């Protein structure tokens, strides 16, 4: 049986990789993927704790995270594709008509 702390540590590592990925990478697709990684790290931690508490509530949350992530990916890819159609390049530095 894998100790709980290892799983939570794995979740924290995934979360950190995702967070750094969003902040460092320039390609919206990769940034989006990194953000989804943060979500999945949270789902993993929820399931790990739910197992250790012998409770269902955390697993319900994980299910809902997965379902919502699917919807978010659908919308996200659609927006990214439509932006790509406008400028045929996909680089967050080039997508910067709006000064920010």
């Amino acid at each position: 049986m894998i100790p709980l702390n290892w799983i939570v540590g794995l979740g924290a590592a995934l979360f950190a990789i995702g967070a750094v990925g969003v902040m460092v990478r320039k390609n919206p697709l990769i940034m989006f993927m990194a953000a989804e990684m943060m979500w999945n790290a949270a789902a993993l931690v929820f399931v790990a704790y739910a197992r250790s508490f012998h409770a269902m509530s955390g697993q319900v949350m994980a299910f809902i995270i997965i379902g919502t992530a699917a919807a978010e990916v659908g919308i996200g890819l659609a927006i990214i594709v439509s932006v790509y159609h406008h400028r045929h390049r996909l680089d967050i530095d080039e997508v910067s008509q709006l000064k920010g």
Partner: protein
Amino acid sequence: MTYALWPEYSVVIGVFVTMIAVMVFNRRSIQAYWVGLATIVVSGIITIADWSSKSLPVALYGHAVTVDAFSLVVNGLVLVAAAGALMIGWNDKRYGPDFPVLVLLALLGMMVLGLANNFVVLFIGIELLSLPLYILAASRGTGESGEAGLKYLLLGAFSSGILLFGLALLYGASGTLVFTHLDPAHMILPLAGAGLALTVVGLVFKLGIVPFHMWIPDVYEGSPLPVTTYMAFGTKVGAAAILMRFLFFGFSLDAGWWGPALGYLAVLTMVVGNLLALAQKDLKRLLAYSGIANAGYLLVGISAHNMFGARALLFYLLPYGLAVLAAFAVIQFVAGERDSLSLDDLTGLAYRSPWLAAFLTVAMLSLAGIPLTGGFVGKFYLIQAALFANQPGLAIGLVVGAMVGLAAYVRPLQRAFSKAAGESSEPIRWPVAGSIVLVVAVVATIGLGVYPAPVVHIVNHSAAFYWLH
């Protein structure tokens, strides 16, 4: 049998009927707008009926949702926001046939945020609010609109990730998903502290507080005008409501964990937001920075952490939202076919259309907090709450922020009342639906400033209820 959740159920049914209307009347889908507006009205009537029912407050689905006076007030506010956005964008073909459906879906998310008492419901509310707004932000199909949608999406997904991880750690520290069952005294400390910090950062991201505000101006500027209105009003209501509900229900006795931090953020936000608003040349960006500063005012109500703070926050949301509705309606009229308006475009507005200039003046003065407008009363209650909480720093920050803000809001008015450089411009069209929003918002803003008693009564009832929970 309770009818507690029927405001939400009626919106679900309304979404279905609107979808059917879009499918049946494909191209010329003004029917969908009418169905959407009817849904909002019906949901509002049920909310008012719920207000007088004896069965509240009530906790449903194993304490997952709590319907009380607070959630009903939030319902009312977001219904006003949705009605305003729908009518400002009334039957405008530029935003595509799905516009009313998406507005109603985001409305449902905001209503869910008002009654959440559980991590699952909190998350569903946040996402139900965000997902339609991503699409709406990108719905114009132009380069800027797509860019705004992309930025909103990336930052939204990022902040939701932070929020979720914080919730996961809190779940690990406490073993429960329900806010009211969280027991900070018996939590594993580092885990609970990290979880609370991440959760608050995630929520504050959505609200647009200063270190996490950088996405707001870009998204507000690029999005279509009605959508920006909706974000500036509705999203702020939803995020403030859930932040308050989460902190006051879950961590009420341990205010030392979050109160001072939020207080510093509030002062920083009020000052920085208003200072940056001074430098803007685009009216939408100016209002975006004003939205950031106003989020800081709202945070004062939360970090004061007493009944007066809760009351002041709930009250302040209404004049802020009304001023936003009025200002954006004016921008929509003056901009016409375009999607943004620079300060220079306002030059000579008082001579082209005196009424529009007058309405813009009322909206701007209310945002700045001049007496006889609703914004003044709201700021007064916020300062009162900060003083009763024995936090004079918050009150001083609010006053300094408001004074800087006054300078920022006077600049567009100065342009509007100066003479244009000769060339005669085309007359401004007044769309019927937008005019109704504009007139109602302006009249209500002045009404709130002159005679705020009825709203204060409602808000008092709501906040007191909430505090005794």
